[in-house]
């Protein structure tokens, strides 16, 4: 027995890295064969992200109602004492109200800012949230942040959500570019672009990703500036994009914001959730799986959660074995 243990010890010492790699690969591969979705409870952070989209049509209608009341109040004031300033305010309010009525279920901006490296975690959450918005009749704007390589990936995600396919069935009809959604594409200097959107979306993006003029698109008749957007979701693999959106959308224009991050960066954003600056936070693959489950999207992230479960159990096992070895060695040394 002693001889076996010592032989195993030297074998392990020489090849432990290769063994751990092979076992991790094997666990992931075995877990992915399991097609059954994992039963997950939905966390408060993900629920906040879901609520933003779920309640968007209702909030948009309330916005229209408030604007109508404001317009009636201004018109009443004008009938009592007319002034150039009041007339300008009325014109503004009228134009804003008309724009709100064009996209009657609300406008949702999805910022996709990740490349293929983070697609495993962020792809399913971006896909699920676009699909969620489409199923509620919400108009969707898609743009990119600082990551140049996000454009081709976003195009695939948007096409998949709008057109679907045999493996990705949709609970809604085909969605048409220019009427139901528009993909702006990548622009350099994301922070300046977001700031410019505060003044005019059409001056920040004159054309969509394929070069079609945005001003001619029906969806853009109802969008002048960032005020016409009811909610923003930023799915990002780098910290620059969510921070830019927190600064511009939340702090400057008070637009409800949701952030979806890779698990490695997500812990930096919990303080923003706790302070109420974010409505929701989708945390890595687990958050994506929760979102998928809640909206009934095809279980892409959810299937991967089995692999997360197995590899985490394996990692915990290794930590325990390592600690046992440490204590045994410590005792021997003593």
């Amino acid at each position: 027995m002693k001889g076996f243990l010592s032989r195993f010890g030297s074998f392990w010492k020489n090849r432990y890295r290769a063994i751990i790699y092979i076992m991790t690969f094997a666990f992931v591969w075995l877990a992915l064969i399991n097609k059954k979705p994992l039963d997950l409870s939905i966390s408060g952070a993900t629920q906040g992200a879901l609520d933003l989209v779920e309640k968007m049509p209702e909030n948009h209608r309330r916005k229209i109602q408030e604007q109508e009341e404001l317009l009636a109040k201004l018109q009443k004031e004008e009938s009592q004492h007319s002034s150039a300033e009041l007339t300008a305010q009325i014109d503004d309010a009228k134009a804003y109200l008309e724009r709100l009525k064009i996209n009657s279920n609300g406008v949702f901006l999805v910022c996709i800012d990740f490349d293929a490296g983070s697609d495993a975690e962020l792809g399913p959450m971006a896909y699920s949230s676009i699909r969620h918005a489409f199923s509620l009749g919400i108009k969707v704007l898609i743009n990119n942040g600082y990551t140049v390589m996000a454009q081709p990936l976003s195009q695939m995600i948007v096409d998949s959500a709008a057109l679907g396919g045999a493996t990705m069935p949709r609970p809604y009809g085909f969605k048409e570019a220019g009427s139901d959604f528009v993909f702006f594409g990548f622009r350099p200097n994301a922070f300046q672009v977001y700031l410019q959107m505060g003044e005019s979306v059409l001056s920040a993006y004159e054309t969509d990703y394929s070069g079609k003029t945005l001003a001619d698109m029906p969806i853009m008749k109802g969008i002048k500036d960032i005020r016409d957007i009811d909610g923003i979701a930023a799915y990002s693999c780098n910290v620059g994009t969510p921070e830019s959106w927190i600064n511009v959308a939340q702090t400057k224009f008070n637009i409800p914001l949701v952030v979806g991050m890779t698990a490695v960066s997500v812990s930096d954003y919990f303080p923003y959730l706790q302070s109420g600056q974010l409505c929701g936070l989708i945390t890595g693959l687990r958050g994506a799986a929760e979102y998928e489950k809640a909206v009934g999207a095809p279980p892409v992230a959810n299937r991967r959660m089995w692999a997360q479960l197995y590899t985490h159990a394996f990692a915990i096992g290794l930590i325990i074995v390592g600690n046992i070895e440490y204590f045994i060695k410590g005792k021997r040394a003593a």
Partner: protein
Amino acid sequence: MGPDTFIDLIGVWIAALLTLGVYSSLIKDTFISKLTEAVFVGVSFGMSIVFTYYNGIKPKIEEPLVRYYQNLHVDYATVTNAVTRTVEKIADAKTLPAESATEELADEIASRSFDTNRFFAVLDSALYKQTLKLQSTNEVAVSLQSAFASSEINLVDKATVMGALKDYFQGYKTVPTSRHFWVLYIFISVLLGLMFITRFFPKHAWLSRFPMAYTIGIGVGMGTPLSFQSQIMQQVQASFIPMLVRSANGIDWLATFGNLSLVIGTLTVLYYFFFSFKKEDAASRGATKIGIAYLMIGFGASFAFTIMARVSLLIGRINFLQDEWIQGTYEFFKYLN
């Protein structure tokens, strides 16, 4: 999710072989792993340049400058004739207001008197677009029709409309004066951008400090007030929370514990990083230890999230190899047979 066409299949195979090439570095650095790394960096960098050109330089600099040059040399009479014909057609067809407008709105617009200033503003917005090619009669017509369709101007009285159009042509230039200043601004911007390249020439490298200073200045100027508001003011505000949380049934012990923990954590961690004096007494040492414990819990959570993220990447790649490469290839050839 598998390949649908033969080209897709080739793409999937290249992606799968490159994935395996990257993972081969786990065994040891080989020619294949080095090649894969080089391909990754090269493709990413090459595509970044192409995307930046097509999404930034081309629409923001090249196309507007080409249009500016073309519009500067366009035949004035051709443009005015095209505009007159289109406005005449619009007034004849009475296509206004927009097709989507309600009858109520149409009646309301018909009751309005003709607003010359608004008419001029609509013409300006249609004819002074940066991307409009004045040489193309069709483009001019489309731009005018689109602008008038959403303008809500009463154009029923054709004689008044055509009279106003003649007045408009009195002051009309194919390129407005403001556009000349805009071109100057573009040239300055391009020049600043090009100055960055002087870093490659040690003698003239000092020139790159100008665009650098400009970029940093703009970034700091725009970002600081917003960052201060979002990352300091609102975060500090969020830490002013009640130490005792009451609910309808009395004290909410869980929320109270959470709030207390947050306050103690914030204060002790801040105290740990306070190095202005020695922390020798028992209270200081205790507070420091609590601060360290909070930091360790924070680092532990971050580390756990890091493992989760790295494993997710591995899962994504193995998912691709299994579903798209092995299963996808099998199904592709099965479908062919």
